[in-house]
């Protein structure tokens, strides 16, 4: 009985709970028990209010929440030592909206520290393991959320995506991950990494669940003046074919940086699109290959500013034994931040410092304009732009930790979309052998749409998902 409950999608469970067929307490308890079996280090802490309160579209649904979202009275760390023990005095709007829809919080999930990373190896509280192979990474920075959903430890989760941190782990864990248009969801209470890029989004087992969560999350918030919501809402995806829709593949796809197995699944998915009546063609997007360069100036620059607040003065860690104020600042931050965070703060500070500002940050902002213009031009002829989500399947723990640039390249396909502020979804499209051989691992297919076109995006993704029929599970031997 309990395992049947766990098989229900969020949409199915919510409907049964609303109809009185399933008790929300029984449902939450089943998930609480599953979450307690976490052997992936997906959770940093589990909370007791999984059943939620009140009626609503998500009534009775427990959600795993990335530890970057402030939850009043519940430790929130952004997976950093500098915030160990921090109890926020308020709750993030995204979490509040989920609760208002009737959902509960199952637990706070592990992540790369301050959302900086693509493998969840940068957490101060240990790496997260991929449910498909515990010697491999789940992706990052929302690795805990992705592993929880992919590993059957939560029915759904929310994460954040700045350069791919929802989409890439979703791809590596074989689940659905959506980054909405910049401004669709409030960032109030979401610990800031790069303010012009950060967005909250759902990680779920199917597209319909992602739509259900996004509908609850989106909306204008007076506490976040960059939030506008999605006009007309998101609705329920119902499309079964792709007739009349045009899909662009960037002409500059990155060639041999893509693993052969990933390329094969990508090409097969393009055929499926055509099989459903969609048109596929290449389109020039000449500046997207510079996305990584622009992003690794802009994001660290914004991060250096946002992380200046962690100074030991008002909350969080304060280093002991510091003689004077400057020493306190420098020691606190040296002790409290991990290597990747320090690296990005340094990069960002350098890019913004006098004499370098125009050469780095100024130029990167202009590259960003060119990238956005490339997408705008593509969307004049096409409805969607598609790529693999990640150039590879899940890589091994420790494989890229010595080479920051190699790690950054994991975001090659996701970053340009973030720079343009566009919505994009990753759906599992099949399994592939990693380059080095071994058991097959999930491959994500990424679909990007024009700003605020989430309804159309989810509809198309739903149709394609139906055609793909991905039913492989970790530990099983499915065909995907």
């Amino acid at each position, binding site marked *: 009985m309990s395992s049947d409950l766990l098989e229900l999608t969020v949409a199915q469970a919510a409907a049964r709970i609303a109809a009185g067929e399933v008790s929300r307490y029984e449902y939450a308890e089943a998930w609480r028990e599953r979450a307690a079996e976490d052997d992936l280090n997906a959770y940093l802490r589990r909370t007791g209010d999984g059943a939620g309160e009140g009626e609503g579209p998500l009534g009775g649904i427990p959600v795993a929440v990335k530890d970057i979202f402030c939850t009043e009275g519940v430790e929130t760390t952004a997976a950093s030592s500098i915030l160990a023990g921090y*109890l926020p*005095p308020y709750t993030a709007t995204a979490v509040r909206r989920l609760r208002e829809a009737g959902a509960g919080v199952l637990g706070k999930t592990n992540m790369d520290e301050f959302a900086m990373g693509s493998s969840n190896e940068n957490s101060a509280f240990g790496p997260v393991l991929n449910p498909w192979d515990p010697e491999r990474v789940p992706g990052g920075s929302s690795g805990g959320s992705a592993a929880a959903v992919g590993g059957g430890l939560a029915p759904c989760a929310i994460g954040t995506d700045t350069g791919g941190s929802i989409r890439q782990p979703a791809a590596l864990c074989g689940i659905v991950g959506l980054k909405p*248009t*910049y*401004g669709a969801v409030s960032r109030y209470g979401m610990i800031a990494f790069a303010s*012009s890029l950060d967005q909250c989004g759902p990680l779920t087992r199917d597209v319909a669940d992602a739509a259900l969560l996004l509908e609850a999350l989106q909306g204008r918030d*007076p506490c976040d*003046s*960059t939030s*506008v919501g999605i006009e007309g809402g998101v609705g329920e995806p119902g499309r079964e074919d792709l007739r009349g829709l045009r899909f662009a593949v960037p002409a500059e796809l990155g060639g041999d940086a893509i693993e052969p197995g990933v390329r094969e699944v990508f090409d097969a998915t393009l055929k499926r699109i055509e099989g459903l009546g969609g048109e596929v063609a290449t389109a020039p997007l000449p500046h997207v290959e*510079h996305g990584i*360069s*622009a992003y*690794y*100036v802009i994001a660290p620059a914004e991060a*250096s500013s946002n992380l*200046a607040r962690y100074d*030991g*003065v*008002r*909350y*969080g860690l*304060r280093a002991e034994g*510091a*003689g*004077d*104020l*400057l*020493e306190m*600042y*420098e*020691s606190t*931050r*040296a002790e409290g931040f991990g290597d990747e965070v*320090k*690296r990005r*703060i*340094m*990069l960002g*500070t*350098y890019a913004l*410092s006098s004499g370098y500002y125009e*050469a780095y940050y*100024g*130029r*990167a*902002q*202009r*590259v*960003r*304009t*060119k990238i*956005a213009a490339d997408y705008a031009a593509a969307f004049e002829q096409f409805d969607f732009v598609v790529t693999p989500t990640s150039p590879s399947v899940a890589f091994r723990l420790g494989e890229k930790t010595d080479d*920051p*640039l190699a790690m*950054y390249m994991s975001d090659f396909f996701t970053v340009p979309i973030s*720079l*343009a*502020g566009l919505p994009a979804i990753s759906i599992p499209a099949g399994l592939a052998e990693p380059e080095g051989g071994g058991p097959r691992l999930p491959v994500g297919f990424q679909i990007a749409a024009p*700003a605020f076109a989430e309804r159309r995006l989810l509809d198309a993704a739903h149709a394609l998902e139906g055609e793909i029929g991905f039913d492989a599970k970790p530990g099983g031997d499915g065909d995907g």
Partner: protein
Amino acid sequence: MIEREQVLHVARLARLRLSEAEVEKMAGELSGILEHVDRIGELDLEEAEPTSHVVPLENVLRADEPRSSWPREVVLEQAPDPAEGAFRVPSPQAE
């Protein structure tokens, strides 16, 4: 290409203490990343305006009406060294 002195300068700006080993490692890593980033130096970006914000929003304001804010005790609850209703910190070094 990024020298030890520059690393130390940037670390001071960022209020980060780095060990000698970290300084050396950081110089190498930053140089590698900057080498890749420098590609954008070759692009023709003449006519592009810088994008600081992707959504067409301008000056989103609220009415200038006073509202209640956090009670002092709540804000000081998480402070490492609250004293006299404020955040106590070590003195800056005498000039």
